[in-house]
């Protein structure tokens, strides 16, 4: 039993990381209707920036804050430069452009920082907290804490600020928002900036576990897709719940289903995506889309 709870907590820990990347995906999807395939790579790039700060002797938490600021500006810049020219284009074009961005960012990171695997410092103590037969790593608890804090800040931003209100207006109806005087273009850039920031958090959290290298986020992105599909691509709450469920499912399946083991764990998100699409395509918390021709 203790072992089971142990696995459960570890699943929640990795689930929290998937949740933050899924949240980044959902943020962009809500504002622009784009699924950003480059989200994981942007997070990886941010993590490399954080690594460079740390290498230069900046204390970890300051480096994190600087990285988040850079990511925010970078996300806005990408929206302006890469996405704005194809705004309103068919879905196919948008997917291909974000894929181009995926390849570009991945290779650029390899060019700048090389493809060698790097150690990334963990901000949390190595030791563990023992409760009953269960040992809770401080790093797992720290990850859960950070992701919860990010959710809290985002919720407060959307719920209680004027900018948040404007952003919600754009997400629900861009044309009406524009008519009421909301600067839609600026809000879209803001959405990309926020998403890049939230994604950067997931990258920094996952790097101590996976080691830092340009292809680090490929697997995480698949889990985040599964999380967003499960929760519904238009629901931030769904992304979080979906991420936690995917993390737990993956850990438990890897630990208890012999045929899956650690090498085939990537099949779990695949099964989740296909299962959700067959049974409830809009996801647990999503709204079913009705199309008008």
């Amino acid at each position, binding site marked *: 039993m203790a072992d089971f709870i142990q696995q459960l907590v570890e699943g929640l820990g990795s689930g929290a990381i998937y949740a933050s990347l899924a949240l980044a995906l959902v943020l962009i999807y809500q504002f622009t209707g784009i699924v950003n395939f480059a989200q994981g790579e942007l997070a990886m790039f941010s993590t490399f920036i954080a690594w460079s700060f740390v290498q230069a002797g900046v204390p970890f938490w300051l480096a994190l804050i600087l990285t988040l600021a850079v990511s925010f500006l970078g996300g806005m810049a990408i929206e302006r430069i890469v996405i704005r020219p194809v705004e309103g284009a068919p879905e196919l074009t948008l997917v291909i452009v974000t894929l181009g*961005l995926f*390849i570009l960012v991945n290779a650029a990171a390899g060019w700048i920082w090389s493809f060698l695997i790097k150690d990334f410092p963990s901000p949390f103590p190595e030791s563990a907290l023992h409760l009953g037969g269960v040992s809770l790593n401080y790093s797992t608890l720290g990850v859960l804490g950070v992701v919860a804090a990010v959710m809290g800040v985002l919720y407060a931003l959307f719920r209680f600020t004027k900018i948040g209100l404007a952003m919600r207006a754009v997400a629900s109806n861009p044309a009406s928002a524009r008519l009421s005087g909301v600067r839609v273009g600026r809000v879209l850039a803001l959405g990309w900036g926020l998403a890049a920031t939230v994604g950067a958090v997931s990258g920094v959290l996952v790097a101590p576990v996976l080691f830092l290298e340009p292809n680090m986020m490929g697997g995480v992105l698949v889990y985040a897709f599964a999380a967003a599909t499960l929760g519904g691509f238009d629901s931030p709450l769904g992304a979080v719940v979906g991420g936690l469920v995917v993390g737990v499912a993956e850990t438990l399946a890897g630990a208890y289903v012999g045929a899956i083991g650690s090498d*085939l764990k*990537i099949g779990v998100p*695949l099964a989740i995506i296909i299962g959700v699409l067959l049974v409830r395509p809009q996801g647990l918390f999503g709204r079913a889309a009705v199309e008008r021709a």
Partner: protein
Amino acid sequence: MNGTRTPTAAPAARAPRTRRAVLKPQGVLLAVLLVAACVAPFQLVPFRVFQLTMVLVYAIAVLGLDLLVGRTGQISLGHGGFFAIGAYVAAVLLDRWDVPYPLTLPAALAVTFVLGFALGIPALRLRGLYLALVTMTIAIFLVPLLKRFESLTGGSMGLTLTKPDAPAWTGLAQDQWLYFCVLLVTGGATLAVAGLLRSRVGRALAAIRDNEAAAEVMGVRLSRYKTLAFAWSAMLAGAAGCVNTWVIAFVSPDSFTSTLSIMLLAGIVVGGLGSLYGPLLGGAFVFFMPTMSQGINQAAPGVISGLLIIVIMYVAPTGLAGLAGRASAARLARKK
């Protein structure tokens, strides 16, 4: 009546005009290409023949992807996976049961068609976006899966085979024989796709690409055609994988990573979506771009293809072949 028919009627109405006007130069170009393709292996050194063969191999896969992306407007990030499955079907048949290698092609076609059909059903009932997600995940999942079934697939070490020799009556060297085998498959696949596109099915696919809702209203069964397009497309990628095994005589899971899928997509975007010569140009791009730019930096192929994809989507959504087509269309317009 006329109004509702526009999406299908438009390409059909345009076709006769272009055919009448462009038939001659296009026919000449095609004939020149064919003659060049048949003479080339006798004029070039074996290594160049091998390179040309590989371009033709990738052209088959890009042709398949174009049927899906360029003609039907759906997206797949997993065609590298179908390529791998085709390659492995051929390799396992050759390795295990000593099947004569021409027979591996129909086997690879059948397996990838069925798999493509089965996967298309859940993914295509929904929006194209989910198809991208599912196909990408499958391509990633395939690599550890191939490593797991070691007794059959040879695990991470892969399978090493022997290349087929040319039959004595041809008097050809091995590389020339392989080249002509692949040329035959590429030509056959191109003809099959061209015939398909000219038929009722091709018009249905174009209607789906241009406006799904309108196509459905006109009576095109979306799920049926989309699933079929996906299955055919997967089948062509499988054919490419199969002939790849003939030519390389080696398969391993790590030669079919998700990079291959993305490169194939890059190939069709650069070569030209929905065009006749797009797949050939795309195949050349997939083969030559990485080998040529690798010298600059390990990351150079990625940077170049990423930039090219984005820039081409901005300025020339129909790729290299489309640019040529637009140039000739502009010339025609000026003549009138």
